[in-house]
């Protein structure tokens, strides 16, 4: 049963607009795990997910004045986090075009040692990698970005289609289509494990 005395997210946002730190902290407390979970399943890196989630919360505070009266907080906030995650993934994809196969050499011909951080395989991920969870996470990460966001929001986090459409900013039918396509891809990616389990 909902606590009638508990302020809604939108009430808290009205206070955040006035620069109220306590209201903002309450929102952080309410959403921190949900948003880290969403971003983590989207970018498949715990460390990166925490950084993006932190940035998303900071945007809530600094861009609070852009939050329209009467709007709902949750879709607005998820949209911020989703955009940050997608932008980061696109940025990384561009960076990854630099070949890691060809050795780097100095002008004198000495080979340089690459020190490339593998963000998709942090300590937490490496531990999980040997388990089924790691394989599921990898399969999700292999989905196209726009399918992935819809899939995570629907089948991992359980948001309604209407809310997802609001978050992503596309029509409801498009979201349903993306989720169904993502399910089919995911099913194919997980086939070896399903057969092994079955």
């Amino acid at each position: 049963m909902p606590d009638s005395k508990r302020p809604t997210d939108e009430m808290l946002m009205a206070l955040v607009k006035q620069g109220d730190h306590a209201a903002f902290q309450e929102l952080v407390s309410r959403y921190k795990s949900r948003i880290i979970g969403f971003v983590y399943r989207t970018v498949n890196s715990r460390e990166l997910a925490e950084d993006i989630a932190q940035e998303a919360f900071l945007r809530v505070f600094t861009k609070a004045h852009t939050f329209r009266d009467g709007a709902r907080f949750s879709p607005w906030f998820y949209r911020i986090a989703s955009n940050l995650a997608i932008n980061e993934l696109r940025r990384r994809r561009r960076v990854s075009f630099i070949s890691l196969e060809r050795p780097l050499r100095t002008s004198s011909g000495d080979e340089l040692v690459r020190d490339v951080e593998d963000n998709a395989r942090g300590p937490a991920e490496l531990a999980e990698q040997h388990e089924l969870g790691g394989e599921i996470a990898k399969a999700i990460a292999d989905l196209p970005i726009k399918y992935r966001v819809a899939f995570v929001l629907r089948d991992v986090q359980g948001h309604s289609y209407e809310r997802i459409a609001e978050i992503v900013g596309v029509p409801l039918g498009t979201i349903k289509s993306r989720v169904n396509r993502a399910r089919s891809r995911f099913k194919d990616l997980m086939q070896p494990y399903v057969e092994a389990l079955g």
Partner: protein
Amino acid sequence: MSRMRCNAVRPLIAETVDADADERVVRLVELHAEECVKCRSELDRMRAAIGLLESLEPVEAPADFEARVMARVRTDNLGGWTWREVSDRVAEALALRPLRTAALVATCAVLGVALLRPVETSPFTGAASRIAQRDEPIPVLPSEVIASIAGPVEVGDLAAVPEDSALTAEDGHLESAFGELEARLAAETVSLPLVPEPLGGAAPPAARIVPAALDARDRAAILETGRSRRSF
């Protein structure tokens, strides 16, 4: 065998695993799958794959996450004020309203023009500098005029001075005005208030060159009192 074809059922299989799946769609697919091995297999694999998602561990935020965010907010936002807050407070302090805003803008414009204006703004300064640049002698008043400053003078009929010959201070006319004045002074014994009048009024009354633009009352007032009814 179900009357629905496989290619019509396959796209619906993904919908059947939805938490809010339409019951009619689920029954339709199941009816078909009872008689179609391939679609049955697809349906089972889909349910098994999506079912795996339940094995994902819920993600918990690190214990210090909230503190980290709050620390960033405090350090990144002007000691606790957002830019919005700062702008709101500035606007509140100024109590900006349309008229006041217009007045503020006008004041800023006037100040801006005054500050950006060239240093050489006086027509006299301009004329003097041009004379200096051309290396021409500066016009000197006749000795009788200078002598007349020290004592009583006879004032000519100033009203008779043609309007188009009135002394003008406009930039570029000073030199010709000086020449014209010289000639007129020689003819009419008119003296000019070349030195400021002492505050006590002890200095002898000096004739005034009446600007042509003045009306009759102005002229009368100046001739009677030596002062203009209005300030120029």
